[in-house]
């Protein structure tokens, strides 16, 4: 796919999304979000620069984009009120973020000019007095020091572990393909029955759409709200 900022570092999923839309010179609408969804998904699939602590946020936006994109791909899909809300929210959120991204650039330029106001050192020239507080003893020192220690942020090892367990999109597609070849037909529910968390379900769905796009599988849904059936496309 033709996009040329693989190595650029984005401030987050909204930043990436905004960049994609602006590159295409589009307004922020549901349609334009659907339009750039592929590029977004491609980016997070290929990009190893996404910081670990941001991956969850990138995936959360991915899941909203998948909703939007799947509406275009599978018009028969019905959305819950909550999902409709999510789709609308993403456009609004992006609009809001754009305002502040622009404001940040303006502030950055003002700061760069270096027209700083300087203040005086507080009470400079005033001589010091020894004025100790009453009612403070050495155990208060311990108490306040302990409270300071408890506020020091612990570098989270947890997040790293979660991320390590999540399969990449690539792996998931391979997985699905193998599984499909064995079973020929299966449902989306079956695929995700072994999912351990939301991210896993999202990745599965993402992979499914990806395979529809690449014409590896056919998707079939008999009726609204019924199971989505996946089939390996028969080669004609």
């Amino acid at each position, binding site marked *: 796919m033709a996009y040329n900022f693989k190595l650029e570092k984005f*401030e987050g999923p909204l930043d990436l999304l905004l960049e994609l839309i602006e590159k295409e010179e589009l307004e922020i609408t549901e349609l334009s979000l659907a339009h750039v969804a592929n590029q977004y998904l491609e980016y997070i699939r290929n990009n190893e620069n996404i910081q670990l602590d941001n991956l969850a946020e990138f995936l959360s936006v991915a899941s909203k984009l998948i909703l939007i994109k799947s509406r275009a791909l599978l018009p028969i899909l019905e959305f819950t009120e909550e999902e409709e809300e999510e789709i609308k929210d993403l456009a609004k959120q992006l609009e*809001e973020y754009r305002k502040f991204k622009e404001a*940040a650039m303006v*502030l950055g330029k003002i700061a760069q000019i270096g027209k700083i*106001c300087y203040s005086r050192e507080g009470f400079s020239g005033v001589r010091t007095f020894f004025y100790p507080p009453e009612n403070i003893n050495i155990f208060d020192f311990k108490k306040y020091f302990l409270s300071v220690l408890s506020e020091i942020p612990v570098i989270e090892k947890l997040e790293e572990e979660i991320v390590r367990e999540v399969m990449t999109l690539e792996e998931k597609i391979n997985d699905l393909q193998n599984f499909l070849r064995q079973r020929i037909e299966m449902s989306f529910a079956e695929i995700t029955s072994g999912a351990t968390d939301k991210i896993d379900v999202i990745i599965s769905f993402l992979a499914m759409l990806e395979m529809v796009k690449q014409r590896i599988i056919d998707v079939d849904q008999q009726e609204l709200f019924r199971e989505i059936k996946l089939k390996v496309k028969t080669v004609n």
Partner: protein
Amino acid sequence: MDSDKLKSEIESILFISGEPVKISRIAKITGAKKPEIENAIMVLQGEYSGQGGLIILTKEDEIQMATNSENAGIVDQLIKSEIQENLSRAALEVLSIVAYRGPMTRMEVEAIRGVNCSFTLRSLLMRGLVERIENPKDNRGYLYKISFEFLKKLGIDSVAKLPDFETLSKDERIDSILGN
């Protein structure tokens, strides 16, 4: 109280203190009433807004005296200023959100940026560009707001002087919920 006398006293207080001073503190020291002081500050800010070498910064219920940003180049030579680190894009985004929309919680900043901001907020707090106060609605949480250091860095005397302050400081979504 004689308003010229009060203005004069406020000038002296700001000069000696050097740091931001609360209006309530000025009231305590001068014995003047809060509205009188606020009025005197307004007049002073007007007098100091010209080409003079000094300006008066205001933010919420605090004021500070500083040099005119036009003279930054001259003053720079006088003070052994700490190296002015450039602000990263993340820092600028968080700063602009807090400047236009603060005081606000970390969650509210993150809702706009779509990413975790705890690291950036911490570094801005340490650099003194952002301040935090306890959240009256949540005794374990904080509210973040802009500092005088930030105003000084941009060379403006109040947040209202930020570009597009009127429009950007309004949250349309909140307004629509409130039915405005």
